[in-house]
C-alpha cells in the first residue's frame, strides 16, 4: 500500500480510484451479466497475443505465409499464441452475440440507454471487421479467395461500389497493397476505434447504472 500512498500524496488518486472500486453493483446481477465482461477479456487477450504475433508476422505476399508457418512451427510457444489468437477470436464473436441477446432480452437498449446500445452495435461491427481483415493475413488459399469474394461483394454497392472495391484492394487486383492495407486496419485503425468505443461503452454503463430488467 505504500506505493499507493506515495502516488496518492502526489497525484491525489484516491477519490478517483475509490469512485471506480466502491461503485455499487445491485445484488440481482447474476451470471447472465458476465458476457460483456467475457467479451472484453477476450478482446484484451486478442490485443496481447496480437502484439506477440506481430513480432514475427510480415505483411507482404512474399513473406506473410512463411512468417505464419515460422510462428507456428519454429517460434517457441508460437503455435500456442497463434492458437489463442485464433480460438479466442471465434469465442469473441460468440460472446459478443450472446451479450447482445442478453441486452435485448432484458430490454436494456431502451431509454435512456439508446446511445450505449448504438456503441454496442458499432463494437459488434468492429469485431466483424477484425474477423474480415484478419482472415486475409495468413495469405493462404482460403484467405486470398475469401477476400476476393468479400471485396467483390463490397463492389456491388450501387454507385460507390467500384470505388469501395478499389479502396479496399488498393488497386484493381488483390495483392501486396491489399495485404498491407488489411494489416494496418487490423492492427491500428480498428483497435484505435474499438478502444475509443469501449471507453464510451463503459463510461455510459457507469454513468447510467446497470439496467433493471424488472
Amino acid at each position: 500500500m505504500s506505493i499507493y500512498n506515495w502516488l496518492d500524496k502526489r497525484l491525489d488518486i484516491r477519490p478517483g480510484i475509490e469512485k471506480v472500486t466502491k461503485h455499487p453493483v445491485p445484488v440481482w446481477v447474476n451470471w447472465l451479466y458476465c458476457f460483456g465482461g467475457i467479451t472484453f477479456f477476450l478482446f484484451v487477450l486478442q490485443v496481447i497475443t496480437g502484439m506477440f504475433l506481430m513480432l514475427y508476422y510480415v505483411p507482404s505476399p512474399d513473406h506473410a505465409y512463411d512468417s505464419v508457418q515460422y510462428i507456428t512451427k519454429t517460434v517457441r510457444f508460437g503455435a500456442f499464441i497463434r492458437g489463442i489468437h485464433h480460438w479466442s477470436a471465434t469465442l469473441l464473436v460468440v460472446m459478443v452475440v450472446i451479450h447482445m441477446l442478453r441486452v435485448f432480452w432484458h430490454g436494456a437498449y431502451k431509454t435512456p440507454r439508446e446511445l450505449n446500445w448504438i456503441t454496442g452495435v458499432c463494437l459488434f461491427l468492429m469485431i466483424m471487421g477484425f474477423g474480415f481483415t484478419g482472415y486475409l493475413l495468413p495469405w493462404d488459399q482460403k484467405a486470398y479467395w475469401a477476400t476476393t469474394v468479400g471485396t467483390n461483394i463490397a463492389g456491388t454497392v450501387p454507385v460507390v461500389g467500384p470505388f469501395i472495391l478499389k479502396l479496399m484492394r488498393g488497386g484493381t487486383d488483390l495483392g501486396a497493397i491489399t495485404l498491407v492495407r488489411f494489416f494496418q486496419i487490423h492492427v491500428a485503425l480498428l483497435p484505435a476505434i474499438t478502444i475509443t468505443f469501449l471507453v464510451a461503452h463503459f463510461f455510459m454503463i457507469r454513468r447510467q447504472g446497470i439496467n433493471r430488467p424488472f
Partner: protein
Amino acid sequence: MKLRKNTRKEIPFYPDHMFKEGIVALFVLAVVMLMATFLQVPNEPVANPTDTSYIPRPEWYFLFLFQALKYFSGPTEMLGTFLLPVVFILILVLLPFYDRKAEKKWRKRPIAISAATLILIGIIVLTFQAGLVSTITLFASPAHGKQIYADKGCDICHTLTGATTEGAPDLLHVGSRLEPEYIFNHFKDPEAYVKDSSMPKTRDLSDQDLKDLTAYMMSLK
C-alpha cells in the same frame, strides 16, 4: 454474516463483483488455452492467385450472409450484397428508436421477442444450410453460360426437353438434380465422375467460363 449479506441491496464493485468476474475470466482463459493446445488452427496451402478454381468459404460467422446471397443472383444480386446487410444493420442500430415502449419484462414484449427469435432462427438455419452450399456460381453469368452451351455444341448430344435419353442425359432439370461443385468439377474431367463417359474434357474453357456454364446449369431447375 449470511443474514446480513442477504438483506443487502448492493455489493461494491471491488472486491465482491470483481471477484466473480475474475473467476469467470479465469475459466474463459482456461477454455481458450485448452482450445489452443488441443485444436489445430486450419492449415491451408499458400495463396495462389492463378488458381481460380479454388472455392473459398468465409469464416463461419459470415456464412449466414453468404448463404443469403445465394437467393439473389443476376440483376437482384445487389439486394443480397448491399440492401440486406444495410437493412440488418439499420434494424439493429435503430432498435431503441422504433421500439419505444418502456416495458422491459420479456413476457410483456411478445412482438419484439418473437421478431428477434425469428431473425435468430433465420440466421441459424442459413448458417447450417451454408455448410452444404457452394460459392461457384456467386459471380458467374448464366447468360454467358447459355452462350457457351450453344457455341460449344453441347446441344449436339444433350437435350433440354425433359425427354428420356440414352447416353447424354437430358438437362431440363439438371440444376435441381446436381450440386454446382459436382457440375463444375465434372466439366473438367467427366470420366473421373462418370465411368466411360463420352463427354469431352473442356480444356479450352477458362475457369470463369466453366463457372458461367455451371451457373447456367444451376438455372435449369
